[in-house]
């Protein structure tokens, strides 16, 4: 039972993390190749605070705050550069985060932070708490999608210049998307640190950024249900099948490529096509 609980916690954290990227990349169309950096910021903030004696529940909002604040700073980059340039800039942010943390002895350097104090929750309660957070993020996403802000997000993703011409304050909405998405990633990071009790710079590198991106892409960019399902499945696949565990990156890389090559809308688009067969012919 212990193992299943731990697996469910991992799953919930991955779903939360993937949904946070979905807000930025899926809803608002701002591609990020360095999202794991914000997971890392959240994890390090929560880890350091917990070691300093701050109670667990208080570390969560603080981790969100720090990650969100840094997210807004990176968001400013998205106002300056677009599309391919933004992709490379965010990738740079990811490398920068790992590079800085690695050299800071105060943050544990290469070795990371270990023995993070316990939250005081039992494993089961912590799992339920993580699931509740993931569910809240899913509800928030569904709400954002429907409200006025979400419509502006998708308009920006569709055609930024037109939105600008219509007199909508594009920078404000882009920054909001970054703030929301990165704060949620920070929350996921805080839960991650508490769940594993050990964090190191390498857990937040480029590969992790790509892993979460593949969860979003495989689920279907912008689809809340699709992303939730794919993050849940992809996060536990390596533990369920030893074969996949060994070839994890091959499977992720292959999935990412095949999905883009044959169904750029992800699983969500596949499912839609199955239920609406008349769309098979449509472009």
């Amino acid at each position, binding site marked *: 039972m212990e193992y299943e609980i731990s697996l469910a916690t991992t799953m919930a954290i991955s779903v939360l993390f993937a949904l946070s990227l979905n807000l930025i990349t899926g809803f608002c169309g701002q591609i990020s190749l360095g999202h794991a950096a914000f997971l890392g910021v959240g994890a390090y903030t929560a880890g350091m605070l917990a070691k300093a004696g701050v109670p667990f529940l208080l570390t969560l909002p603080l981790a969100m705050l720090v990650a969100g604040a840094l997210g807004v700073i990176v968001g400013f980059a998205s106002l300056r*550069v677009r599309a*391919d340039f933004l992709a490379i800039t965010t990738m740079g942010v990811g*490398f920068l985060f790992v*590079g800085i943390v690695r050299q800071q002895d105060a943050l544990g350097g290469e070795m990371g932070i270990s023995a993070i104090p316990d939250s005081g929750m039992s494993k089961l309660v912590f799992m339920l708490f993580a699931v509740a957070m993931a569910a809240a993020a899913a509800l928030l996403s569904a709400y954002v999608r429907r409200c006025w802000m979400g419509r502006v997000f998708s308009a920006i993703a569709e055609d930024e210049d037109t939105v600008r011409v219509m007199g909508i304050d594009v920078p404000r909405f882009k920054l909001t998307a970054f703030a929301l998405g990165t704060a949620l990633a920070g929350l996921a990071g805080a839960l991650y640190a508490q769940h594993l009790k050990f964090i190191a710079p390498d857990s937040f590198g480029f590969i992790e950024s790509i892993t979460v991106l593949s969860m979003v892409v495989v689920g279907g960019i912008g689809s809340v249900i699709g992303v939730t399902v794919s993050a849940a499945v992809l996060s536990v696949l390596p533990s369920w099948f030893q074969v996949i565990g060994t070839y994890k990156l091959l499977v992720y890389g292959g999935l990412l490529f095949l999905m883009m090559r044959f169904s750029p809308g992800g699983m969500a688009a596949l499912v839609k096509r199955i239920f609406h067969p008349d769309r098979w012919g449509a472009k």
Partner: protein
Amino acid sequence: MLFVELIAQGLIQGSIYALIALGLTLVYGLLRILHVAHAAFFTLGGYIGVMVANQTGSLAAAIVAAMIIAGIGGILVFRLCYQPILHQPPFVPLIASIGLYIAAEELFRIIFGPSGLSYKYAFLQDQVVLFGFLRFKLAEIAVMLGSAVIIGVLSLLQTRTRIGVACQATVSDPQMAESFGISLQKVGDINFFVGSALAAFAGVMVSVLNNMVEPTMGSVPSYKALAIIVLGGLGSVRGTLAAALVLGVVESFGTIYLGHYLDRNAIAFAFLILVLMWRPQGLFART
């Protein structure tokens, strides 16, 4: 003296970057795709180089084999992977390319083992002293001269031959070029062949330099090369060359003076981010 040595080391590293980034620029100029999987041909080149050199004992044969095989691989990637998704929004080929690269890196690990291979015969490992104080490995000089010659020949071909001019025309206006009877398919094939062959040449040279190849040898150059073509202004060949050399030098100075605060990759990307915030269109872009 340290100053000159750092510049020399930076230029060596920069010319390796230039060889890799040139292929990326060719692809970006033509198709507007960030071809992350390009670095897979760098690694492939290294592996073919080691295997052929160990079989035949000839470095020249290794280089030729690596360049031809990687070139053909490049054409296959173009036709099978990119061509069908060119009409999609730009993130689609980008993500596909990242997926392809990660899968390729894993394949190298699975096929050749995680620990890498090394040369049976050590090529170009002798030390040379220039101007009385600059110490080089022969391989380092070969890298610099090799890339200068190859890049020079390429730019001649591009301006002096029909095919080269056709490539240039296609980059500046694909539809117009096509209506003048230039085959887009052929131009794409040539660009991918040349770009991948250059990456393979760089792969062989780096494997000679370090006397080994390993599955992950492409990962850092692949992301660095992306940074370089962005710095160079995406799609500009001269900008890419300049940016590659500049980044090489910045890194070699950075690791000495900033090494305590940032590692090598972080220095490169910090430089990239700073430049982009200052000039979002890249360092050497035409405005």
